[in-house]
């Protein structure tokens, strides 16, 4: 399914007129479902592995935010570059990261994308066009300003997409990065994911702005806002911004309104969340449930088709987990390579020789 879905996307990628999600092909629309389902199934497996103590470090869920990640990443092309954030597992999968890589990253195995050096979604592959974030938030906006500056000065028809959270809009790096990109008219789309909380801090304590998209005017860039739990709306708003960037229109700041249904990470009991809030979002505004209704009611998709996609996602995650569980941990001395370019290995301290 994964290969099929991506293949379908490639064939159709020029067919969608700017801003018209309705022109996505039937196959694209099923692909959107597949990527969201794969994201959720993969995370559920990571939760199991976390509880079995098989993961290293914390586990950061994107439960309830799958439409935000998948719909936006679906709007960029293969040769574009995106920089993901904590809750953009779906974006990375759409951009070509594989479930086995993701599980290995969370297990810090020797054959993980960062060979056990970094965790979670902190990994990158320029060949597939993604750069994972680092923990100091907002920095990737500045880095992506540079990535897209290269597109501009070389005259390449490529676009960059960078995600940040509501919390990171408070950082200097966000401000400095988007301002630089705006002045240079870099082909960059900046998505502010407003999921209600930065760790325990609600958006009202993060910013006095009524909505994050209002900041766009201050930077002199286009601004747009969408329901982050409506995957087609997310696709549409992002596609419009991507097309604008590709045609020389510069930066767009998009606010996607969504909701973080789990804590910052799995250790976080969400004691600060008002009672009933999580349950209400789960019952009334789950992005996958909503999209299933769209597919069945409007696209006349049979439930059996969706069940088949679910089964394929589960099978892929099963296979990936089996594979990752056979991966070895790194060996200690491997920590001493690649600090600098070249094949040299730092000399270990004498008491480690």
């Amino acid at each position, binding site marked *: 399914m994964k290969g099929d879905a991506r293949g379908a996307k490639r064939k159709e990628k020029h067919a969608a007129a700017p801003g018209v999600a309705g022109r996505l092909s039937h196959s694209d629309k099923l692909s959107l479902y597949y990527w969201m389902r794969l994201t959720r199934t993969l995370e559920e497996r990571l939760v199991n592995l976390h509880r079995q103590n098989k993961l290293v470090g914390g586990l950061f869920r994107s439960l309830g935010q799958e439409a935000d990640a998948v719909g936006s990443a679906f709007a960029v092309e293969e040769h574009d570059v995106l920089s993901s954030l904590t809750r953009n597992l779906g974006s990375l999968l759409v951009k070509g990261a594989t479930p086995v890589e993701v599980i290995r990253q969370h297990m810090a195995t020797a054959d993980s*994308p*960062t060979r056990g*050096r*970094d965790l979670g979604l*902190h*990994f*990158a592959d*320029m060949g597939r066009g993604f*750069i*994972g974030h*680092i*923990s*100091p938030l907002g*920095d990737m*906006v*500045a*880095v*992506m*300003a*540079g*990535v*897209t*500056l*290269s*597109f*501009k*000065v070389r005259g390449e028809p490529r676009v960059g997409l960078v995600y940040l959270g509501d919390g990171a809009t408070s950082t*200097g*790096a966000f401000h*400095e*990065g988007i*301002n*630089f990109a705006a*002045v*240079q008219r870099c082909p960059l789309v900046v998505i502010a994911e407003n999921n209600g909380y930065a760790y325990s801090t609600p958006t009202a304590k993060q910013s006095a702005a009524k909505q994050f998209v209002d900041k766009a005017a201050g930077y002199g860039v286009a601004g747009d806002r969408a329901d982050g739990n409506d995957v087609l709306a997310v696709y549409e708003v992002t596609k419009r911004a991507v097309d604008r960037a590709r045609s020389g229109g510069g930066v767009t700041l998009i606010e996607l309104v969504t909701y973080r249904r789990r804590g910052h990470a799995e250790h976080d009991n969400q004691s600060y969340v008002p009672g009933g809030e999580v349950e209400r979002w789960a019952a009334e505004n789950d992005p996958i449930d909503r999209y299933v209704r769209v597919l069945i009611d409007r696209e006349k998709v049979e439930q059996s088709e969706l069940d088949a996609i679910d089964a394929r996602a589960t099978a892929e995650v099963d296979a990936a987990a089996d594979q990752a569980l056979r991966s070895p941990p790194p060996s200690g001395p491997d920590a001493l390579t*690649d*600090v*600098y*370019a*070249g094949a040299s290995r730092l000399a270990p301290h004498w008491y480690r020789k």
Partner: protein
Amino acid sequence: MAEITYLEAIREALVEEMERDANVFCLGEDVGVFGGAFKVTEGLQARFGENRVIDTPISEIAIVGAAAGAAHMGLRPVAEMQFADFISCAYDVLTNYVATSRYRTGLACPMVVRAPSGGYVRGGPFHSQNPEAAFVHTPGLKIVCPATAEDAKGLLKSAIRDDDCVLFFEHKYLYRRIKGVMPPGDHLTPIGKARIAREGKDLSIITYGATVWKAIEAADQLAQAGVSVEVIDLRTLAPLDDDAIVATVKKTNRVVIVHEDTRTGGIAGEIAARINELCWEWLDAPVLRVTAHDVPLPSAAALEDFVLPQTADIVAAAQRVGRY
């Protein structure tokens, strides 16, 4: 060949590298039309265009972050901090992102950050700093501090071609005071190799940057008293040239380390520790440091002269080491 200044040598390196490789470009505050606060990049925008000499907002985070992103894509950015003092604004991006990128994800950051640094110019607390030690402490960065015009050119050309991020601390005091004749051809000074600035046999002064010249003055004065002083110009602080340090210790058995940076946590302590670990038995005297006092650098001449190491201080330290 005519002599050119240390500053002109830097500009010559930029021009040569930009002509050699279309991926090389400059970015920074006021570097384009104005040619930079010190006129290092004067004329470059007219010559190479606005896409290769980019005037940026006042934003060290964006300058360094954008340089890193451009470097990921195969460009070779040369970012300018208007004063090295402001590099601390980009400390997070440099240490958390640039320095770790290759190690973590395999994405290279071949970029240069030029940082006009140093005192003896009455610049005060925010236009005189020597922030190198903070970055020497960060694995993944390379750090060079040229003392001569020849090295300013040769090290910058090497830094631009290096596949890692190089912090290039160019000394403001030397910009127009030091001249040199550039070696012919494609002049590259290797990163990571110290230089013997003055041969000697009785005592070694290990230093870098502007204090190389004060060490040579001190060596001249000590020579009149019959003391033969060797002056080692480190040129690169990361990676440090341990071989050159050990060689001079074995030759003279007495060491004074001099730097303009403040004392506590300065690189002199690191060098002394390495001498202790690598060649302690070759020493005839304790290793002494001559450094700035541990205060923010004040503006008034009398205050700055008191705080920063002077030639007489180096002579005094050498005489003390010589008495053992």
